[in-house]
């Protein structure tokens, strides 16, 4: 069994988000980059499924050389080898196309991603890979079991869940619950340095979307504090002032 886990290089969750060049560029100054937390969940499940000689886990990132430390972190967590497709991941369509083209040259049984990246909050790449490869894709999954041929997957839906089975190759995007994120140990960190990282050149594809500018939310006005012994006045304020009830 061969599993491919697609990882995204994203700003740490506590990063203060600011922009430069007239709000057209994300300000990368002083930003710490991490493996996208949802991708870490996907990677952790992939490692669990492959344990005991049942398979191998490859991590893939579409990015430039600057993302190598993030890829090494994924290798330290326990992936066997890594691939970097050498390009700026300009949008989901481009990124998914690159991954799909790479998968056509290799033979993976399962392709996993995180449910979304915490920067652009898209939920696009997994389902796009599925469509480019014409294989099933299941988005936002909470549970993944695999018996060697058939996967049993729990997918989130509004107010509940759906159980889906897939036989054959598939893509899934993982949410919380699929696995507990693994933390690299010293042996993992040491061995990550020597694990293979292959660099592949990107292919051309027509541009369909691009981010042209950013905006930051308008700051909220100061909080209106209500003394605890006048708590009941909140209901009136929500009705007459905020007009939400």
């Amino acid at each position, binding site marked *: 069994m061969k599993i491919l886990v697609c990882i995204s290089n994203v*700003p740490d*969750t506590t990063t203060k*988000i600011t922009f430069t060049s007239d709000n057209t560029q994300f300000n990368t100054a002083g930003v710490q980059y991490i493996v996208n937390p949802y991708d870490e969940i996907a990677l952790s499940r992939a490692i669990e499924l492959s344990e005991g000689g049942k398979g191998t886990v490859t991590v893939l990132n579409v990015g430039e050389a600057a993302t190598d430390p993030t890829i090494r972190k994924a290798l330290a967590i326990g992936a066997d080898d890594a691939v970097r497709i050498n390009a700026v991941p300009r*949008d*989901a*369509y481009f990124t*998914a196309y690159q991954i799909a083209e790479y998968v056509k040259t290799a033979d993976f049984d399962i392709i996993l991603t995180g449910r979304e990246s*915490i920067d*652009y*909050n*898209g*939920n*696009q*790449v*997994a*389902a*796009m890979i*599925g*469509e480019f490869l014409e294989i*099933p*894709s299941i*988005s*936002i999954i*909470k549970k993944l079991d695999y018996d060697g041929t058939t996967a*049993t997957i729990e*997918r989130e*839906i*509004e*107010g*509940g869940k*759906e*159980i*889906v*089975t897939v*036989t054959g190759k598939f893509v899934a995007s993982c949410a*919380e*619950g699929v696995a507990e994120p693994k933390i690299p140990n010293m042996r993992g960190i040491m061995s990550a340095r020597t694990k293979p990282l292959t660099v592949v050149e990107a292919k051309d594809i*027509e541009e*369909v*979307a*691009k*981010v*042209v*500018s*950013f*905006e*930051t*939310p308008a700051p*909220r006005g100061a909080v*209106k504090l*209500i003394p*605890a012994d006048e*708590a*009941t*006045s*909140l*209901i009136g304020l*929500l009705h007459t002032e*905020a007009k*939400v009830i």
Partner: protein
Amino acid sequence: MSVLVYVEQVDGKFKKSVFEAVSYAKAIAAQTGTTLSALSIGEVSETELQELGKYGAEKILSVTTTELKKFVNQAYAAVVAEAAQKEGADIIVLSNSFSGKGLAPRVAVKLKAGLVDGAIELPKTDGGKFLVKKTAFSGKAFAVTELTSAVKVIALNPNAFGVKESPATPVVEAFSPAVQAGDLTAIVKEIVRATDKVSLPDAELVVSAGRGLKGPENWGMIEELAGLLGAATACSKPVSDADWRPHAEHVGQTGIAISPNLYIAIGISGAIQHLAGVSSSKVIVVINKDPEAPFFKVADYGIVGDAFEVVPKLIEALKAHQA
């Protein structure tokens, strides 16, 4: 040229988020001077389909093919793409629901279209560009995305646009798309849904509680308050991690992101990861006994006090208000 909106049904009914998507699609059709068609897949009564007319659907394609009764994104994407081609649609709108998130990207690839998911405003089309604003950086920013492709796909965030009436008398047309067996290899075995409660992503009002409640046995007052308001209940990550509340209620960075009209946070400190999931709520009320709780910084109304004293008072005041 026309606009096509995919209307997701659940047990033969449309939810508010669907009427919002139709309202939004109608506004785009008006903006671009074209017509709006809706596509429904699955068994939906004529009466329910006619509801879509209220919000501006002029034509409804209704697919009742047996193999397509259950949502499988691969097969549904083929149907949406075929309908778009049949209607000559160059803008396709969907709701950014859990199923929509699995469907929209596949539709986009089929039609070589750019996709904006998580759209929160109408597109700006002046100056020959097609620009759509979406949430980014987990609620900490917005990204304005330009779609440069001929066909464009937009997945609209629930509660971002609102429902707007624009009455039309829709013509319902049966549509029998081609179905490929190869698109139906993912098999839906079971759907488990709590039907007695307001679904969290769709909810206009949300009452949420955290560790300050001390234990799962104390959620009675939260549910009572939510019940009186007609609100959904939610919780913080530590609460769902401790299994005090189901995981489906967890809002925040790693849970569900919501943008209700009113979010009441009780006994939640407001860690950055929690705020990421709720900061786009229109009005935020924070009840916390710690005046230093970071949540107060992003709140519209705050009560510094013990939840066990404040919440019962609110319940009484609400009962009096509703009487």
